[in-house]
């Protein structure tokens, strides 16, 4: 297995170099000149050149590319952010991933758990009222925009709820895990965004898992299990679920890299100082060092999660061999 992992890692080096190359080229040749953003409406032609020089944009592209790769290789993210003077890229990113993970990880776990259970129930009751009701709810849930959930959720779940009960259950916005302790802080500031993200993701995931379970339920081993007298619960949670693990792992693992990106909309509306918030700010500011560092990290996580997915396949399904 270790041979396989090392080999996959080596194979991915050119892919990684290509990702960074494309990103840097797109930023430099496909987007507007950041010097204009930097100087604003009173940009002076002479100052534009100076700013390009100070930002290192006048260096040959290859030199910029190698310099950045060296920074990634040495994990040196000490370059000053262009958009937030006085802060390094490392500081910008290191303080942002925790708030994001506090939203996305519980969101993923809750969504996956509930969706798999609902998918199982739905598949087991295929064609019956319970199945049809659950699927109608899933489709309705999918059809409503994420933005609507956020706006309505923030209004009723935070503002109106406070008006009704007279005390703040969920905060309208903000992020503070210190004032009242971690648990209370998380419940106040993170629980509502998590609930919203779960509701939004449930529709998609439930339909997906149902489809997986339906496919499994028609296989011979299910008939055999039932014929041998296995109980309904055992058939569902032991036989069917175990055999459905490959698509479940695929689904969960492909989501994994996106956990660090966070949800831009959720973070914007709920004022959560996470990665999505920061990345979008960096894009608006044309803050190349932050965008590049973020993408470099994201690409690493993406590649690693792909490899990990393969490893997990082998662990849950003995028929899969890593070669």
């Amino acid at each position, binding site marked *: 297995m270790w041979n396989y992992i090392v080999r996959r890692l080596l194979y991915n080096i050119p892919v990684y170099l290509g990702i960074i190359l494309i990103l840097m080229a797109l930023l430099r040749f496909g987007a507007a000149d950041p010097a204009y953003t*930097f100087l604003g409406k009173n940009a002076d032609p002479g100052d534009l050149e100076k700013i390009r020089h100070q930002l290192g944009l006048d260096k040959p592209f290859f030199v910029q590319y190698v310099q950045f790769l060296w920074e990634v290789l040495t994990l040196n993210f000490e370059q000053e952010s262009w958009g937030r003077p006085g802060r390094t890229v490392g500081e910008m990113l290191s303080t942002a991933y925790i708030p994001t993970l506090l939203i996305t990880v519980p969101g993923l776990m809750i969504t996956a758990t509930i969706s798999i259970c609902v998918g199982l129930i739905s598949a087991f009751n295929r064609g019956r009222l319970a199945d049809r009701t659950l699927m109608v709810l899933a489709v309705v849930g999918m059809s409503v925009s994420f933005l609507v959930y956020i706006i309505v959720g923030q209004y009723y779940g935070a503002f109106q709820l406070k008006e009704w009960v007279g005390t703040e259950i969920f905060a309208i916005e903000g992020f503070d895990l210190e*004032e009242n302790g971690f648990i209370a802080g998380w419940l106040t500031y993170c629980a509502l965004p998590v609930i919203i993200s779960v509701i939004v993701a449930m529709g998609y995931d439930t339909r997906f898992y149902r489809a997986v379970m339906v496919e499994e339920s028609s296989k011979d081993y299910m008939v055999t299990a039932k014929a041998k007298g296995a109980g309904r619960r055992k058939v569902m949670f032991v036989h069917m679920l175990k055999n459905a693990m490959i698509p479940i792992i695929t689904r969960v693992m492909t989501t994994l890299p996106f956990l660090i990106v966070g949800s831009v909309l959720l973070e*914007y509306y709920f004022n959560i100082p996470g990665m999505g918030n920061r990345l979008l700010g960096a894009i608006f*500011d044309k803050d190349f060092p932050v965008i590049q560092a973020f993408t470099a990290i994201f690409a690493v996580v993406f590649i690693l999660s792909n490899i990990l997915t393969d490893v997990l396949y082998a662990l849950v399904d003995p028929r899969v061999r890593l070669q």
Partner: protein
Amino acid sequence: MWKPQRSIVVRALALSTALSLAPALTAAPTTDPGPGGKDLKVIQLPLRSDAPKTIDPGRGSTTYDNRACSMVYDTLLQYSYLQRDPFVLEPALLTKMPICAEDGVTWTFQLKKGIVFQDNDCFPGGKGRELVAEDVFYSWKRQADDATKAKSWWLYKDTIVGFDAYRDAQNAAAKAGGKFDYDVPVEGMKVIDDHNFQIVLTEPVYRFIWVLAMFQTSVVPREAVEHYGNRFSRNPVGTGPYMLDEWTDLGMSFVRNPTYREEFFPTNLQEGDDAIVAESSKGQRLPIIDRVEYTFYKKDQPMWLRFEEGTLGYTQVPAENYETAFNRRTKKLNSAYKRRGIVAADVPLLDFIFRQFNMQDELVGGYTPEKVALRRAIILATDFDEFNSSFYNDKVIVYDGMIPPGLDGHPNNEEHRAGPEYRGKNIALAKEYLAKAGYPNGEGLPKIDYYVANSANSPEQADLTARQLGEIGIELNVRMMDFSSLIEACDNKKAQFFSFAWSSDYPDAENNLALFYGPNQSPGSNHANYENEEFDRLYEQTRSMEPSAKRTEIYIRMRDMVLDHAAFAGSMARTRSYLIQPWLRNFKPTEQFYNWVKYLDVEESLRE
């Protein structure tokens, strides 16, 4: 809502205790912060859309930077808080307004004595020292230093004798491996003694007086810049009313500067100010609030809800909440808000929102009657009133010319009109002009490239423009792009016809007229690439003139010259609506300057 860390609150309380031990600080305090800070006056305010990027006046340029810098730093002059229409300057760090010699270029300044920088580790023993004349020049020289990455050199460019040459020489020396020497004197900057200095301008330029109130010219101590290096952006040390306490991604908080100079609430109340100003505030030592907490709101809904729940002292009214707050027909505040004691205030902005032609473009540019006729057809087919009702809740002022309401030279009649043929919608006349241009009903006219910066509703606005011009047979090729791409296209003179907005940097029409001054052509701010020798001559003449009837008359002539050449289609100026909590006192909203937080007060009995 962003909340400061507990330790910060504790520090603030400790500070209030310290304040209570410093009776000299407040001449007539409304509350006496006792031990434990029971009576600490705290206020929460919003910062909408974005956050400050820096609290270094040398590097800042945005409204948000301005708001943060204005808390911590002082300028030589400041806007008189209660005086509007017209705005008036008054001394801040100076004892009196600067005196201009008869030559019109030599200005003499006298600093107030005893103004000290906030206590900070950068000073020996952590004790802030007195601000002296050298600090002023040092702060301005930072704008010349490439290492500062300053964005506001344009304020000084070609203005002070020898300053441009100093900039070039010092940056060249730094580039060659030497250093940017702040001790090298500049010919036009003369220190007389610690509290007196002179500036010699390259030519009489009246706008210089406005520059002295801009936050970019705030005074910073050299020790702090050298002590903090790149971190100075986040470690401000000024002489302003507040000190930075905490700055996170969600907000920033400031606490009262215990060594702030002696300044009192103004007594020159204007008409209507009695309803705004708390009786107890009159003549009170500034700042009044002990602690100010800003939250950054990138989205409007959370800001609006925080105001609704009574946390924020005021809010701008987002477009989507306009009809919640106001009756759409009467524009009056809805009774639900009136019952809560909330008051509304409209703030007219010094806006120039317009559609500009590239006067050097082969199709839409040029000065021949046919070319002017084409542009006039476009202008007359454009209905800004429809934009007003569709996108601005009928809250913008549609006007002729480039001079916004409130400034000398603005057409001050009821309809803001400068002439009968300057503005649409007049489809019949537009068609006539289009025929005069050689394109009857648009026949033979190629599609016009219309450049638009991508923002909230700009695609819809571009669609409306296309539909309106389509009525006379003109087709647009709409090109949406981000703002910097638009600027780049304008700088390269590639943008044929484009949507643009200009907010006046200071309340003088000179700032707007400069957009049509020949030497400012792209890549300068004259993106129309407008050329008119007579206009340029008058512009140069008015630059040295103080406000007067004669200057206003010249402004009007210049305005009408550009209107006659139909160099742009316009104009609109937004009015921003504010809602203010009943407990927030002394708030007279403006977006022209931002050092007004020191005047605010809260009436705790109403807040409870």
